[in-house]
């Protein structure tokens, strides 16, 4: 029977000792055993190319296979909406509903997690105004914002566009780092958006040539307070990751990670309160320059995530495509283990086309690691046979033209 948790309990961050209904550290997870964190039922309505989908599963690994454009990634994206934010495609809400429909869409999931079972619903309701945020309901109660989602479940993902994470510009890397922070600190998202808003306001004032020193000063005060908090949370995550990745898990290489930015460097050498003062002074000094160039020359919005292949002492961007992917897998799995060890709950993982670029050894090692995880993983691929080695731990579904069917075992 589903254990319904009270709303008060779902609003509470999971810190401190957590009593767990099933599973504990050191538990041997056998193939086919139910994971402690899982989406056991998923309903999608008018979601992209899917008119209606319903699936139920208790499996450790859920495999979605089918041709290109069938809707596999759409299912993963729907699952990513069970966490705060814009999902794994960073979609605009208007792009999510099925074409030709009414604009209404919904994702409903029954989620098992270490403290019980919750029902999560999210989407756009019929009488919602254009431009409003998506609704979130937890156990039938409307939640105040998407942040409430992060208190029950964390979700992380790897997608094909992220294969270029180490090669492209810094902003996707910064978002990737921030997602690792959210897992431990649900309020991080609110601080990042408060910082971004103050930054945009300051840029607008500078662009409009309003040299109202008091107004600019007030915005810089806000930027300094929020910005230092953002940088400190990222630093903490990096420190945790470093300690959790010392060894790496063969054949996935250990990565050395660092947050590369001025503000982080200040935090290395001075107390946060002094770093705040320094950041504020730097912003004030850069007003003329920022007015010409737009944005701000200094701040955590410019921080980059620097990743190195520890064994080879080589920057990730210089590694081969396959090694870059292996490094990403390594980081995501290390973060998942840390969440499990520190918070008593592991994240749901969504791996889109994960086996591309991985050799057979790494592919099989990955499958074993996923089977050992205490939480569910959803993976997609065009070729079903690539996942044969998952054996009975996986439940396989075929996806074709927005329809899903259980594949014969």
């Amino acid at each position: 029977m589903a254990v319904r948790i009270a709303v008060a309990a779902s609003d509470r961050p999971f810190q401190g000792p957590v009593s767990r209904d099933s599973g504990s550290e050191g538990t041997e997870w056998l193939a086919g055993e139910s994971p402690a964190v899982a989406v056991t039922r998923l309903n999608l309505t008018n979601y992209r190319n899917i008119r209606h989908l319903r699936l139920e599963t208790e499996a450790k690994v859920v495999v979605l296979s089918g041709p290109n454009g069938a809707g596999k990634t759409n299912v993963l994206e729907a699952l990513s909406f069970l966490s705060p934010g814009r999902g794994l495609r960073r979609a605009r809400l208007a792009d999510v509903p099925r074409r030709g429909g009414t604009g209404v869409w919904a994702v409903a999931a029954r989620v098992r997690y270490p403290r019980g079972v919750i029902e999560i619903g999210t989407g756009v309701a019929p009488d919602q105004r254009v431009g409003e945020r998506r609704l979130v309901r937890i156990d039938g109660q409307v939640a105040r914002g998407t942040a409430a989602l992060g208190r029950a479940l964390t979700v992380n993902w790897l997608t094909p566009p992220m294969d270029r994470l180490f090669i492209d510009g810094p902003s996707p890397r910064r978002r990737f780092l921030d997602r690792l922070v959210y897992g431990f600190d649900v309020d991080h998202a609110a601080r990042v958006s408060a910082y971004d808003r103050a930054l945009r306001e300051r840029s607008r004032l500078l662009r409009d040539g309003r040299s109202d020193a008091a107004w600019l000063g007030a915005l810089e005060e806000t930027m300094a307070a929020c910005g230092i908090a953002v940088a400190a949370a990222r630093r903490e995550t990096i420190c945790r990751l470093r300690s959790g990745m010392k060894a790496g898990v063969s054949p996935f290489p250990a990565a050395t990670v660092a947050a590369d930015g001025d503000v982080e460097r200040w935090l290395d050498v001075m107390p946060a309160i002094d770093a705040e003062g320094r950041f504020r002074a730097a912003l004030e000094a850069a007003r003329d320059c920022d007015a010409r160039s737009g944005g701000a020359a200094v701040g955590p919005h410019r921080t980059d995530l620097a990743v190195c292949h520890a064994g080879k002492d080589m920057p990730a961007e210089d590694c081969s495509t396959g090694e870059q992917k292996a490094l990403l897998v390594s980081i995501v799995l290390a973060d998942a283990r840390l969440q499990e060890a520190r918070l008593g709950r592991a994240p749901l993982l969504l791996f889109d086309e994960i086996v591309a670029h991985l050799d057979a050894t790494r592919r099989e090692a990955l499958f074993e690691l996923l089977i050992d995880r205490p939480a569910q993983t959803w993976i997609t691929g065009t070729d079903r046979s690539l996942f044969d080695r998952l054996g009975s731990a996986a439940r396989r579904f075929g996806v074709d033209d927005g329809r899903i069917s259980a594949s014969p075992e």
Partner: protein
Amino acid sequence: MRDGHIERLIQLLARLPGLGPRSARRAALHLVKRRDTLLEPLARALNAVADAVRPCSTCGNLDAVDPCGVCVDGRRDPSRICVVEEVADLWALERAGVFRGRYQVLGGTLSALDGIGPEDLNIASLIARARKPEVREIILALNATVDGQTTTHYIHDCLAACDVDVSQLAHGVPVGGELDYLDDGTIGAALKSRRRM
């Protein structure tokens, strides 16, 4: 097909905060069905408010007289002015019954993105009031939101030249609150504004 008058009423109701098209339809029907007990009294009340209520030219509060009841109340302490974002915040403070000074309603917060600058808020009149010799303290009681705090910093800066004490409401542990349930930001703010016992 609905009557044009009712349609107009529904459209107007739907523009109220917290009401969507569906709840506006329900409200409109509810009103029409209760003509004597609700619709007509409401219409009279709306008319009366539209005729009489104006913002106070001193503090920005809403009242049927100008200056408002709070500003002319001789029992109130003229040396302290509490600055709030909206009239609703003034009402909240009055409900609590803990403040016996006067108010200044800003009418919003600074927002460059929404095009709301200092000249759109009652800030110039606040500074003029702060310069009066009888005023000793300005209490900034803006919301603990990003925009509220930015505006607080701004006003604090503007008041630097005036000979008044400027204070701000404490941020931190709510009365009856448990530390275990608070977010990191609130705990941090509470620790920052701790006081000697």
